């Protein structure tokens, strides 16, 4: 076989955007050319991008993923996005004011998350990473329930069984395998491929992760397992272009959605700033899973408009032009323009939603400021389902130690023996 058979396709063919003169990505820091190439990648979704609402707020059709959506649903999704963005901004402020240890901003990813979240049915299961405030919103988790993680009072206060949403997962990619296992369980229990007449007869699982996570082994293993067991799981990758300071270029030399082919299931790139397209593609993918056809990978092509977390300084690694370009694709603005132009809503509705958002922000803030600190025995509670004698002894000794202080500085009633 001649060496030509082993020639890899050029990088520009791979990505459809890279500058062919750009040097190979071997140096520690991205070169200016790579940054520019990355900028092109982040501003163009490519020909395969599924879009139903342009950045200018024009409704467009798509041969495979069009969607019939009521005006009421459109208004609700607008409200969803405005409210969760407002809570997110309040989270950022609370961290800046020292009320939260850290906040993980959602800004810019509202459409991806609300579109996917609203495609889920109550009986479905969601396995999030840690930025999924919009998905949590759709699962009926009040934004105040997210605060404990970031204020340091708990590791997640909602009940995964009741809400159909797992707790936030901080180690990158772990949840992709857990989600696949859960979906295997749904399948083993016969909850896929049943008659469509009963909407409760079928279930699916959706797992959320970022572009950086696709470099982790667990995402690969999750996809291998999902594929070989035809597990009803939808992998929802929010490609927000940056894994802290590392561009998508540092994670993959092919568009992420194309990797699905290697696992043997469909991969689709959707405009993650288009809530209609995110909803349409997610609904289709979840139906595929529920029907027993197996997994789907969705790459929601979006952008993190804020820093990775409040501890991050995004100005160190990305160009302001990039941010400005993405601001023109704002997911909320494009829907607002569409709704107003089509007279689906009037300015009164927009103002009403904004007022509701302000009320939510106030409630969110007040809740945060009034959160009580966990009592010291919380440290020892529920480490095991069956109490460990070792942990119990350590708890008793520590509480005894604390009780030796005359002024313990906290409400000891009912907490410290």
């Amino acid at each position: 076989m001649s060496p030509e058979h082993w020639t890899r396709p050029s990088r520009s063919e791979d990505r459809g955007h890279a500058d062919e003169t750009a040097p190979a990505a071997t140096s520690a820091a991205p070169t200016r050319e790579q940054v520019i190439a990355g900028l092109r990648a982040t501003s163009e979704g490519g020909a395969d991008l599924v879009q139903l609402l342009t950045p200018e707020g024009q409704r467009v059709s798509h041969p495979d993923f069009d969607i019939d959506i009521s005006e009421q649903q459109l208004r609700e999704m607008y409200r969803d996005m405005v409210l969760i963005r407002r809570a997110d901004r309040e989270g950022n402020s609370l961290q800046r004011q020292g009320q939260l240890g850290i906040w993980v901003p959602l800004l810019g990813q509202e459409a991806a998350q609300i579109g996917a979240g609203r495609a889920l049915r109550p009986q479905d299961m969601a396995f999030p990473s840690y930025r999924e405030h919009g998905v949590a919103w759709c699962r009926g988790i009040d934004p105040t329930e997210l605060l404990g993680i970031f204020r340091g009072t708990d590791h997640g206060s909602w009940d995964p069984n009741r809400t159909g949403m797992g707790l936030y997962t901080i180690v990158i990619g772990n949840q992709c395998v857990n989600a696949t296992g859960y979906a295997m369980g749904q399948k083993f229990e016969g909850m896929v491929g049943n008659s469509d007449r009963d909407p409760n007869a079928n279930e699916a699982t959706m797992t959320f992760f970022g572009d950086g996570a696709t470099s982790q082994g667990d995402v690969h293993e999750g996809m291998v397992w999902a594929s070989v067991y035809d597990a009803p799981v939808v992998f929802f990758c929010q490609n927000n272009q940056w894994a802290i300071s590392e561009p998508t270029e540092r994670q993959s030399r092919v568009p992420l959605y194309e990797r699905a082919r290697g696992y043997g299931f469909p991969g689709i790139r959707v405009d993650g700033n288009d809530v209609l397209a995110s909803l349409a593609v997610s609904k289709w993918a979840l139906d595929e899973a529920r029907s027993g056809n197996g997994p789907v990978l969705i790459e929601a092509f979006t952008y993190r408009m804020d820093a990775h977390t409040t501890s991050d300084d995004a100005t160190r690694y990305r160009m302001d032009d990039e941010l400005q370009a993405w601001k023109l694709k704002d997911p909320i603005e494009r829907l607002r323009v569409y709704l107003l132009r089509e007279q689906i809503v009037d300015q009164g509705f927009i103002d009403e939603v904004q007022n509701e958002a302000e009320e939510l922000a106030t409630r969110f803030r007040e809740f945060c400021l009034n959160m009580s600190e966990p009592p010291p025995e919380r440290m020892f509670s529920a480490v095991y389902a069956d109490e460990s004698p070792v942990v119990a002894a350590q708890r008793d000794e520590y509480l005894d130690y604390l009780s030796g202080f005359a002024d313990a500085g906290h409400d000891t009633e009912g907490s410290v023996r």
Partner: protein
Amino acid sequence: MAAPTVETTGSGTTQPQTITMAKGLNMAMRATMERDPKVLVMGEDVGKLGGVFRVTDGLQKDFGEHRVLDTPLSESGIIGAAIGLAMRGFRPVCEIQFDGFIFPGFDQIVSQLSKMHFRSQGKVKAPVVIRVPFGGGIGAVEHHSESPESLFAHIAGLKVMSCSNPVDAYWMLQQAIDSDDPVLFFEPKRRYWEKAELDPTAEHLSMGSSALLRRGSSATLATYGPMVKTCLDAANAATEDGNELEVVDLRSLSPLDLGPVAESVRRTGRLIVVSESPPESSVTSEVAARIQQECFYSLEAPVMRVNGFDTPYPPSKLEEGYLPDLDRVLDAVDRSLAY
């Protein structure tokens, strides 16, 4: 028909029978699978092959491919998927083929499995059992003879067990599968084929308890897993020198049930802790530290330890020297008695 007063073993008998440890483990899985349809067995080659040690032999034939899963070659997948299945209400029993292969799954064990219950304050349970054939003495290649149990005993939220004989294997594994907590279950692979009589109607200890196996007055040996037999052999040999050794099988490495060890040390005044693992920051360190704290005034000598070495596991032609044997145990006893 009257309800039986004793649970059947799943092999259709309550009669005493001679079994190997491998058979005891197999019977334990069979018994739990029969009484609870949510119990799954999963791992590489556990189905048609019956596992590389044949411990799961025949289970897939009898329970089907949806109860006994031949999985992709993927340890993080095995454990990560087991967590998801457990969240769905299943009780997965995972087999890791060899001790040295658990590390690709270490992240899922430490980051997710051990913390699910605490993180959710009991709303999410993770009743996953991970079976790990461990330890040396079988002349294997690298990564097939390690003793990583101390790493897991260090992780809060995990229970860590090690059986040492066929009867314990039978009972402890059933208890581990029934437990709502995640359990790392270490099986001494070089003892898989040793035999004992199992009376399924006899009383049995809880998996969290250590067991005094032999009484004596000269010194106490505390050990677990593959070293239990070595220590019992050493105790027998010690009688030739006029020394009577107590032997305690720890059984549960986390939580440690140190009560029987402390009681024994109060009788003998001397403790030697034995395991195959490297000594630094190990289960033997923990036993030594806590016994010195709890039994300081009863001790006639410092607590001695007999372990492998703080080296990677050696090529198998050297493992005879690496693994504690009867002579190294008796040498430590002599050094303790010399105080």
